[in-house]
């Protein structure tokens, strides 16, 4: 049986059961069985698999037990929204910057190695592909930095209202593009100055 199918089956056999916490306490204290074929109690979650519960409980392999549990819905279930896209992009830009630090390290090591090594590095970074990569790297850096400011602001409990959130997302996106272009204009104006 495929993975998906067993998960579907498990879901269809779930039911909503509510039980007062003290009733649950009493049931566990005198050692009564919590789950029968159509009755089940759980203190933390109202959703409990009724038909599978006993089977799951008696399984000795934790892997087998987890496969009978329902899967939480993942990305493909949701309609893309700005909030989730910005969250995903923040993580992707972070991962990109992670590998991008190697470019900085190579550039600094080349400068420390001597004029010929540095000239090679400058030639590679100054080539068309190099410039495109560095331009994207600049945007990635600024976008992640602005996203970080947004997260720090959220850490103080501010900016959570729907309109504030949307404004922050738009400011992050727009600001990152504008600042990236500005940095590159300044970079080109300063070209060869040092």
């Amino acid at each position, binding site marked *: 049986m495929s993975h998906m199918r067993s998960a579907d089956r498990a879901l269809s056999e779930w039911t909503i059961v509510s039980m007062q916490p003290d009733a649950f306490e009493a049931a566990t204290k005198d050692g009564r069985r919590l789950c029968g074929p159509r009755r089940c109690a759980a203190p933390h979650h109202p959703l409990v698999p009724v038909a599978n519960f006993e089977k799951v409980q008696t399984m000795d392999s934790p892997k087998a037990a987890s496969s009978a549990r329902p899967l939480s819905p993942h990305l493909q279930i949701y309609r893309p929204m700005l909030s989730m896209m910005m969250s995903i992009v923040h993580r992707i830009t972070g991962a990109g910057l992670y590998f991008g630090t190697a470019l900085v390290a190579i550039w600094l090591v080349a400068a420390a190695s*001597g004029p010929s090594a540095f000239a090679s590095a*400058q030639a590679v970074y100054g080539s068309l592909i190099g410039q495109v990569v560095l331009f994207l790297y600049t945007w990635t850096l600024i976008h992640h930095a602005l996203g*970080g*400011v947004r997260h*720090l602001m959220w850490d103080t409990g501010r900016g959570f209202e729907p309109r504030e959130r949307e404004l922050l997302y738009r400011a992050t996106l727009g600001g990152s593009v504008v600042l990236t272009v500005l940095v590159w204009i300044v970079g080109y104006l300063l070209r060869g100055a040092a």
Partner: protein
Amino acid sequence: MRTPLGQVRGLGAAKAGTEHFWLQRMTAVANLPLTIFFVGVVAALAGSSHAGATAMLGAPWIAIPMLLLTVSVVVHMRIGMQVIIEDYVHDELLKLLALMANTFFAVVVGLSCAFALLKISFGV
């Protein structure tokens, strides 16, 4: 089910508390001004000669913030990538290896940048 000792320590299965969260915020705050500085330095050095670049990068007021940025960035990116690995790599052995590689990468990048900056500064 939590033991009284576990409750007192409050560490859970991750064996760590809020240090990770706090360190990520602290390095994020440090990264902000240092990154702005870094972008300025790199923009000023676009297409620069070796002599010009080393003269600038070797100046204490440039080299010191660059070293600070190196430390802060390497710590920040290491714990950031650690979270990504822990979220997506479920195989225990693979996760262990990925977490190790993550630390190695962060140390190699950090030490390379620091060594290069110090060498340029001291001119040996």
